[in-house]
């Protein structure tokens, strides 16, 4: 027995068990997220339940669980039709159900507002359209939807023009504000000239807006009427229908196509319905851009600081204290960094920028408010210790002989650093960057006070001069999870989206670190010593 202990057999088991436990927990997390996230977009069959008292309930079955009393089951239906019932979900006692079936003609509508509609198509009312092609009502509806979509695109173009004009008017307004701030009297020629341009623009703008309004009103005349399961009629403008599909009448490949189109919307579309529906493109874009900007700031800063610490600073008590301090910086709670970012970057630096360059716009802040620049700088500050520690250790791990070999050939310290040491340390530096990126991607708390928003009107990078708008607020997947999961008015309906967003965030971190790890391995192969 003693021999058994001495050989260390139990220790092997203990270490193995510890590793297994961590792996199982990580795997469980991923699996839960995947199972819940991946299935969200697969069209679920619509089930109709008939009760003894003649009432009916129709919708997607979400889950089935035993009653608290222990007798029988209950089923949770997603009945949708919030505008009719007030609630999206409904618990139903199985005891009262006579029959469950899947009516083939049941239609599911995804709408611009009020969530999904479950029911049956009743009639189409398109006054100014020719008799739509198609024999069945369903075919007619899809034909109508196509022509509506075409008109919507035209309206979209109009909207873009309106937005362009409104931007120009905003510019003029700022110009005027600046002139007034600089002390031009209202009757001076410069002010008058701007005012004249303003009024001209205003005319264009008003006509365009009026036309846009007309077109929209016309379009909304095209309507379709649906009946819910108990026969209540509901008329919807066809323009409000995002998707109409018949899940009980779809083959698996039709479902697959549907799934792909939902994925496309997820990656490229804008969010709808208080972010619980639609796409995540702005959030994905914001997250990636934030991490990218953060790396851009923290990577050079950290590497250069570490080089000084390791190569130039004289080893001594001060350097030791600095090293400990840097290590401890990595442990400061992120919200503290957020508050620092708010105080220093936003109010301090941003406020000064505003006073210096945009005094005429005050008190409306330009840079003195949260934005992607300040958020990424705050995150950079948060992650820079990680980069410093990794770089410092990587440089310290390089054999002394290589350093001496280079110096003995007449290289300066700088040449040795740039040609030999930094390349050799690069795998270690990359490891630091990977850790920094992973940490930055997961941070939400500091972002909430430095510029993340629930819904950003514009991306921080677009086609309008100067293309990169670092002062803009942005969306972020991590914040999105928090927002729709815990701040949404309709938490139950938002749940699938929470899983999808989580999956996406994990995926983005995974992709970014895989790329970095691939790069690191390449460097490792090139720069590491074998044994000799």
């Amino acid at each position, binding site marked *: 027995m003693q021999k058994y202990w001495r050989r260390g057999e139990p220790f092997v088991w203990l270490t193995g068990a510890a590793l297994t436990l961590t792996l199982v927990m990580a795997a469980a997390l991923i699996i839960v997220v995947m199972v819940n996230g991946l299935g969200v977009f697969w069209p679920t069959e619509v089930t109709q339940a008939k009760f003894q008292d003649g009432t009916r309930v129709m919708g997607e079955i979400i889950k089935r669980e035993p009653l608290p009393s222990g007798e029988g089951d209950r089923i949770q239906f997603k009945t949708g039709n919030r505008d009719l019932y007030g609630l999206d979900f409904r618990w139903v006692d199985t005891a009262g159900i006579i029959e469950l079936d899947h009516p083939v003609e049941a239609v599911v509508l995804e709408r611009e507002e009020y969530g999904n509609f479950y029911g049956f198509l009743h009639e189409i009312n398109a006054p100014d359209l020719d008799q739509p092609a198609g024999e069945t009502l369903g075919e007619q509806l899809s034909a109508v939807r196509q022509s509506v979509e075409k008109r919507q695109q035209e309206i979209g173009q109009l909207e873009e023009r309106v937005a362009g004009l409104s931007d120009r008017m905003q510019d003029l307004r700022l110009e005027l504000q600046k002139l007034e701030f600089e002390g031009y009297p209202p009757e001076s020629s410069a002010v008058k000239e701007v005012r004249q341009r303003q009024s001209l623009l205003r005319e264009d703008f008003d006509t365009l807006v009026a036309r846009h309004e007309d077109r929209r009103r016309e379009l909304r005349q095209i309507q379709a009427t649906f009946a819910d399961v108990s026969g209540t009629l509901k008329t919807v403008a066809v323009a409000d229908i995002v998707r109409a599909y018949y899940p009980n009448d779809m083959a698996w490949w039709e479902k697959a196509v549907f799934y792909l189109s939902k994925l496309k919307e997820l990656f490229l579309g804008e969010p709808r319905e208080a972010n619980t529906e639609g796409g995540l493109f702005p959030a994905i874009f914001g997250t990636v851009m934030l991490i990218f900007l953060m790396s851009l700031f923290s990577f050079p800063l950290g590497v250069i600081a570490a080089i000084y610490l390791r190569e130039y600073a*004289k080893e001594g008590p001060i350097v030791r204290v600095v090293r400990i301090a840097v290590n401890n910086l990595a442990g400061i709670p992120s919200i503290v960094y957020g508050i620092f970012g708010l105080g220093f970057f936003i109010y301090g630096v941003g406020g000064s920028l505003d006073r210096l360059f945009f005094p005429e716009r005050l008190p409306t802040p330009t840079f003195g408010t949260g934005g992607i620049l300040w958020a990424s700088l705050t995150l950079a500050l948060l992650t820079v210790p990680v980069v410093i520690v990794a770089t410092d250790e990587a440089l310290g791990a390089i054999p002394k002989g290589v350093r001496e*070999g280079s110096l003995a050939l007449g*290289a300066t310290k700088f040449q040795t650093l740039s040609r030999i040491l930094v390349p050799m340390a690069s795998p270690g530096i990359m490891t630091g960057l990977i850790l920094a990126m992973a940490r930055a991607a997961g941070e939400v708390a500091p972002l909430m006070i430095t510029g993340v928003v629930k819904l950003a009107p514009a991306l921080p990078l677009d086609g309008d001069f100067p293309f990169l708008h670092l002062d803009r607020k942005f969306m972020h997947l991590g914040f999105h999870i928090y927002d729709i999961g815990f701040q949404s008015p309709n938490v139950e309906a938002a749940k699938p989206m929470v899983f999808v967003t989580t999956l996406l965030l994990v995926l983005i971190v995974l992709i970014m670190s895989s790329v970095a790890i691939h790069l690191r391995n390449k460097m490792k192969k090139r720069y590491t010593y074998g044994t000799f």
Partner: protein
Amino acid sequence: MTAKTMEIGSSDPVIEVDDLNFHYGSAAALHNISMNFTRKKVTALIGPSGCGKSTFLRCLNRMNDMIDIARVEGRIRLNGDEIYTPKLDVIELRRRVGMVFQKSNPFPKSIFENVVYGLRIAGVRNRAQLAESCEKALRSAALWDEVKDRLEDSALGLSGGQMQRLCIARAIAVNPEVILMDEPCSALDPKSTARVEELISELRENYTIIIVTHNMQQAARVSDHTAFFFEGLLVEYGLTNQVFIKPKNKQTEDYITGRFG
């Protein structure tokens, strides 16, 4: 003993060392060393571990500068130029005095880039010139035939002996006046050691070589002159034959015959 030992190097010396003292903080490592090194000869520095021979070697190209607590007194002249003076460009000095280390330390670059490293940092850009110097250095280091077909491969793929010869080639490529070797064979197997010794004999024709070694036979085989260091003192310095066959000093004799050290 402290006087300029014997007549070696009195005519046309490459390096003249006058009264050199070296301290690590408060501990003295070298006492009043004075010796001259003869041009185009191989001088072996022998002595037990910790006797200061490596420290002395590193004084010759100021590699000890990197140690913050090191302090040097005395004078060293390279071809008449004072080494320990603020006016001297250390970079230039190290180009004139090359060094090969105990443990081979190729850079994680290609074989070609390793050899021309010294030239590149000196600002040579001409590809043809670099290639020519590379070939010359590798031929001098008797490595050319083994690596000529894989100059672009990583130097880290070479064997231990090849790596050490690559380091010698790297030192030769900048055309130094003196090559310092700090126990260049201590990490090599006998066969590679023989190759490097052969190489040292060939290099003698063009370079002044100062080699630190723990291996008596090696010192006897490759060197013209031998200096015996003991506890920071230069005990004996003379022609290798004399030092090994008829040492004047009792300590030298004891060391050479293996009674201590």
